[in-house]
């Protein structure tokens, strides 16, 4: 169950900050950049590692909720420091149909840019960002590494984008 081991959580890039652009491989021959999604909301889900039990539950849940995310026109992307081949095998095994980006080389560079890298462990935090159509962070959250943060925070953040009528 919940691992309550004390761990100092990072403070993620806050709402209002410009989301750092990046270009990362999603497959061995494809790259995805944040800039190409300008004009629609983006959900970035940083997670520590492929295959670890909590990550798998979390990503399975997001796959299940994906149609709800898409109602807001949002694009969902998972990011970890694992390489593309691990991501491919993981996505295939767990039936995940959204991009998993490899923050692999230089290792964790994007996680660092979003202030969610855990240098000691060499992985990222379990962190969520909702970025609006103009590339601005509108919501960010770091969950304890052993705790699946669920999807309610993301849905609420996406709804708030709509309410504020930013785009």
């Amino acid at each position, binding site marked *: *169950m*919940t691992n309550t081991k004390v761990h100092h959580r990072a*403070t*993620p890039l*806050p*709402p209002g900050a410009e989301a750092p652009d990046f270009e990362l491989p999603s497959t061995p021959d494809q790259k995805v950049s944040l800039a190409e999604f300008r004009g629609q909301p983006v959900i970035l889900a940083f997670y520590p590692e492929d295959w670890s039990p909590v990550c*798998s*539950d*979390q990503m*399975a*849940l997001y*796959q*299940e*909720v994906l149609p*709800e995310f898409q109602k807001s026109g949002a694009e969902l992307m998972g990011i970890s420091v694992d390489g593309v081949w691990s991501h491919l095998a993981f996505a295939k095994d*767990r*039936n*995940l149909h959204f991009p998993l980006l490899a923050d692999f080389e230089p290792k964790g560079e994007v996680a660092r840019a979003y202030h969610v890298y855990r240098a000691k462990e060499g992985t990222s935090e379990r962190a969520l960002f909702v970025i609006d159509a103009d590339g601005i962070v509108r*919501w*960010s*959250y*770091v969950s304890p590494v052993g*705790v*699946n*943060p*669920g*999807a*309610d*925070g993301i*849905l*609420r*953040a996406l709804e708030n984008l709509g309410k504020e009528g930013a785009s």
Partner: protein
Amino acid sequence: MSSTQWEAVLTMPVNEDRDHIQGPADAAVTLVQYGDYECPYCGAAYPIIKEVQARMGERLRFVFRNFPITTSHPHAEQAAEAAETAAAQGKFWQMHDLLYENQRRLRDQDLHAYAQRLGLDVELFDKEMAEHVHSGRVHEDFMSGVRSGVNGTPTFYINGARHDDSYETETLLAALEQATTVRGRGK
């Protein structure tokens, strides 16, 4: 911290007319479970809930809502629909128990056999299953769970607040007992 914090609470209140409920409406404490019939952790929780119900008796109201994670469990959705289809014929809990007692046998023909065993109108059962008559209800349960911060199965709520501790028998019982005293004091 600059990030948003929130409490995970049940966003869709328990409704005596809508929900599948065991125990009296005025019980001292209400336990809501979001569960998946194919999830092994829910299978492990199943006898624990039975034990907790036996020990608390009429002081506990237990509510079950569907949370099938089909990405991981290919038979979970049809199993959930089978329980709802049985519910339409007044046998939700009987089907619920059969599903958890036979978690590894949830193929269509298995569900059909359970409907037969429970003495349901099997023709109607098969028709409603084929037409997914109760999929909307399952989805409504699922989304109410997502909105309430369900982050995996099983997830429990005690008097509307998410139970983030273990669901091992003694821990769960202690949390339920604690909730009865808190509520008692409030009265």
